[in-house]
């Protein structure tokens, strides 16, 4: 459709005489275009009479690329690729904006962020140091525990030894006592034995006399 529009507008414009002034899209050129219109059918007239000033310039803009050299000047004002003082002004505006943004945003906030990063990193590293301290403290605690355990086991050993010694002493005492009693009982027994033997000895003599008397008849 675009090509159709272009073609049609080209036709239109070629039939219109080039306007002398540079400020083209004025009422003047509008009139001139309309003056040439009666060459077309009635429908065109109706269509174009309602055409606004803007749409005419649109048509001319659309036909710019195909327009003959004479018309190029005329359409200059309604062009897509219209370079003028806007370009350097935008450049200057951009540079000013760059400096201003740098001053109020990039540099201060960047500096602030870097400082905060550094502070956080420092804090983190210091936290790592305290973790070493914690390790030391843990070691200390372990040492204390070890010492305490050693102490306890020593005390336990000592106590064991002491009680054992006591027990042994008591045992020895008991044994001695028993032995003494045993000795005494044995001595008593021996004594009784000897007494019995002695008494038996005296009886033996009498008995043997009697035996002899009985065995040997009295001669």
């Amino acid at each position: 459709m675009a090509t159709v529009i272009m073609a049609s507008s080209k036709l239109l414009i070629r039939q219109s005489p080039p306007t002398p002034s540079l400020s083209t899209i004025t009422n003047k050129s509008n009139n001139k275009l309309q003056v040439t219109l009666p060459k077309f059918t009635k429908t065109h007239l109706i269509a174009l009479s309602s055409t606004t000033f803007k749409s005419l310039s649109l048509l001319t803009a659309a036909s710019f690329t195909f327009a003959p050299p004479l018309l190029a000047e005329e359409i200059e004002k309604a062009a897509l690729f219209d370079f003028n003082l806007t370009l350097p002004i935008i450049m200057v505006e951009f540079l000013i904006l760059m400096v201003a943004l740098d001053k109020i945003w990039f540099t201060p906030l960047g500096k602030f962020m870097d400082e905060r990063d550094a502070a956080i990193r420092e804090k983190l590293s210091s936290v790592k140091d305290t973790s070493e301290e914690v390790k030391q403290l843990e070691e200390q605690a372990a040492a204390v525990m070890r010492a305490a355990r050693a102490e306890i086991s020593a005390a336990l050993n000592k106590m064991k030894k002491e009680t054992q010694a006591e027990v042994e002493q008591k045992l020895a005492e008991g044994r001695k006592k028993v032995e003494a009693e045993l000795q005494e009982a044995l001595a008593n027994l021996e004594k009784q034995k000897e007494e019995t033997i002695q008494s038996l000895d005296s009886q033996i003599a009498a008995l043997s006399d009697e035996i002899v008397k009985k065995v040997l008849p009295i001669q």
Partner: protein
Amino acid sequence: MNVLSCSINTLNGLYDISGVEVGQHFYWKIGGFQVHAQVLITSWVVIVILLGSAIVAVRNPQTIPTAGQNFFEYVLEFIRDISKTQIGEEYGPWVPFIGTMFLFIFVSNWSGALLPWKIIQLPQGELAAPTNDINTTVALALLTSVAYFYAGFSKKGLGYFGKYIQPTPILLPINILEDFTKPLSLSFRLFGNILADELVVVVLVSLVPLVVPIPVMFLGLFTSGIQALIFATLAAAYIGESMEGHH
């Protein structure tokens, strides 16, 4: 003849509904030179938005950032990241350039899609994103060219010209040509994308005023962001390329 009448009628009807204006500019005269006033006005608005929000958000930085400050810190990190990946370790001095490039294009593009410019009537032309004017995009692209030439010269002095005969002198014409194609492609890519996007939205709105243009509008927002990112990334890449050593 039939085709002609048909097309003119169609065009007329379309025009009355949509008011598509291509290549229409609102002119001011400054010292005998013409400027595109609509571009300047919108660019001022964009600059005011950028500076104003930055001043409000960064005025009093907190160690634990507030929501606004957090966002601005995130954007700064993002810009630094782009610069660092493209330029390398010496990215520091280029952060303002890359960052302003990205932010200016991004806010310009989105302002064209989001701000109701049409409320303000101009005698001729209409307010739109500053980036849909070729002057803006060419200005930014030329600044990029200047920036990478400056980067190369400040780093290597006249030795910078050595890169034109790298890797072989046969490539000299192509290397020289590149200095022209770089700003050309940068500016036309941005210009074409933004202009086409706005035209598509306008035409769709004129055809179907409800619902249908919405996905295209979202696509436009997406494209706008991507274009800003591409422009900034390529600018950084060119700067990095001219600074890197050729051995």
